[in-house]
């Protein structure tokens, strides 16, 4: 059975690169009306979030303060919590897309996994930075080996290893397959990492202090939810652009292949003509 090249897998059925429509990318770049809308929403959202988080929501002091009285620094959590959740989401997306690559074998899922991994690294670093800041506020040190920070650090290294593997392989089909397997193997490790680190730290530290007081409500809850939405929008916007960039790169490589095919054929007929000429 001859595979049909026009309907082939790993030849992209991802974000279309046409020129019209809400979601189609502008030929001069990876933007589109759709992505611009999302980007604007994200920017506006960030501004609103800043307003709420930094100004309008109450600080952790006075009559409603929590046990530890963090004061103004509690505002870090409005960034830390959403960013941490998005970083885990990005990892989950990479794992899911890796599984789909192995099942469906289309290029779309491979590009999605790669884009999510890259954006995920950004969010993981942000998580670690804000977590470290929070730790400095809460415990006075820049780093504490509590369960969550340690697991996140390990997650970062797993991500970085995944990206290093992708960079080490040049053939796109081989890269898609191997990176997908590596991604899934790393993902399978996550629950074990979580449990081992948790048990390990619980020996020395009965409870982590990064837990937010569960009875938050009103404006604090709203700000937290707003933060989730805004950072999710930012994630989506970054993903769209990263994905499209990789898609365009893959199409460029494909075109190079067709050219190479023609050149190879030309070399063939030249060589055969020479041998025919020699024989006569």
């Amino acid at each position: 059975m001859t595979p049909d090249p026009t309907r082939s897998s790993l030849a992209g059925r991802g974000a279309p690169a046409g020129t019209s429509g809400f979601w189609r990318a502008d030929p001069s770049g990876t933007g589109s009306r759709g992505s611009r809308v999302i980007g604007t929403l994200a920017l506006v959202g960030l501004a609103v979030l800043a307003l709420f988080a930094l100004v309008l929501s109450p600080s952790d002091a006075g009559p409603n303060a929590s046990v530890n009285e963090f004061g103004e620094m509690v505002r870090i959590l409005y960034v830390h919590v959403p960013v941490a959740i998005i970083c885990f989401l990005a990892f989950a997306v990479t794992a899911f897309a890796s599984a789909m690559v192995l099942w469906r074998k289309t290029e779309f899922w491979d590009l999605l996994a790669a884009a999510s991994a890259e954006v995920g690294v950004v969010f993981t670093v942000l998580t670690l930075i804000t977590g470290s800041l929070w730790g400095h506020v809460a415990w006075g040190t820049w780093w504490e080996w509590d369960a969550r920070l340690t697991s996140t650090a390990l997650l970062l290294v797993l991500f970085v290893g995944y990206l290093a593997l992708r960079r080490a392989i040049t053939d796109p089909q081989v890269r898609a397959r191997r990176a997908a397997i590596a991604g899934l193997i790393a993902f399978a490790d996550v629950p074990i990492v979580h449990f081992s680190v948790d048990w390990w730290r619980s020996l020395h530290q009965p409870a982590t202090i990064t837990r937010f007081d569960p009875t938050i409500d009103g404006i604090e809850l709203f700000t937290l939810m707003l933060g989730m939405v805004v950072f999710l929008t930012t994630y989506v916007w970054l993903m769209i652009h990263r994905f499209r960039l990789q898609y365009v790169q893959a199409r460029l490589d494909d075109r190079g292949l067709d050219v190479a095919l023609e050149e190879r054929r030309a070399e063939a007929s030249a060589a055969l003509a020479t041998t025919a000429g020699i024989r006569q």
Partner: protein
Amino acid sequence: MIRAGYARPRADQLYAPPHCRALAGTGTVRTVVMEPVVHFRGAICLLERFPALAGVDLDVAAGEVVLLQGPNGAGKTTLLRACAGLVPVITGTARVLGHDLTVDRRSVRRQVGMLGHSTGLYDDLTVADNVRFWARSAGAGLAEAEAALTRLGLDGRLRDVAVARLSSGQRRRTSLAAMIARRPLLWLLDEPHATLDQAGRDLVDGLIADAVAAGATVLFASHELDRANAVAHRSVTVAGGIVQDGCTASGAAGRPAAPPVSAHAPLGNVANVP
């Protein structure tokens, strides 16, 4: 081990694929209903995005000895590896020993034997260790391994010498022994005479003759045209990823060229590649 009852075809019984039949003279060729051992049409193989095979048409009948000649970089090695099922065939038809390589290229591997440029041997193990391991991994027994060692003249002092300490000619013999212990149906040899001395080259010719007498088919690439043409039934030229004279009858003239791949059709076919 695995032996099919292929009878060696007589000269007037050479199988001619349909379009070559049209070119052959009438009455002198009787077709035998026997599938060719190797059947490629428009096969394209990519090596890291480079089209090593750019549309190969080839037919090899059972019991034939076919020589692949051509300049360096023409794709001879890739063609041999494709026949072994080691390289995925992206488009076109590719059937070897009845297995469709575009669907499943694993099941054919047990039935072919390949001798490549590299030795394929473990340097730290001895000659006997290597031949025994490779024979047993293909399902052959120790008896076949011993027979192979004897046939290749390796059962004297050289048996227990580590491969790393052998000369390249002796390593080639060891690789050959490892291959013939498996009793493959299709032999794929990439420059078998290279690095061997006169005695070694005669030995290779003898092995090829024995193999054909036992019913195997041999496809080999070589630059030693005089010796190779003496051994081969026919020869084909490989250049720029395509094969000239791929089918049995004198068929280069008048054959349609392989259809060019559309410039707009992306070639990343992996859905159907096993």
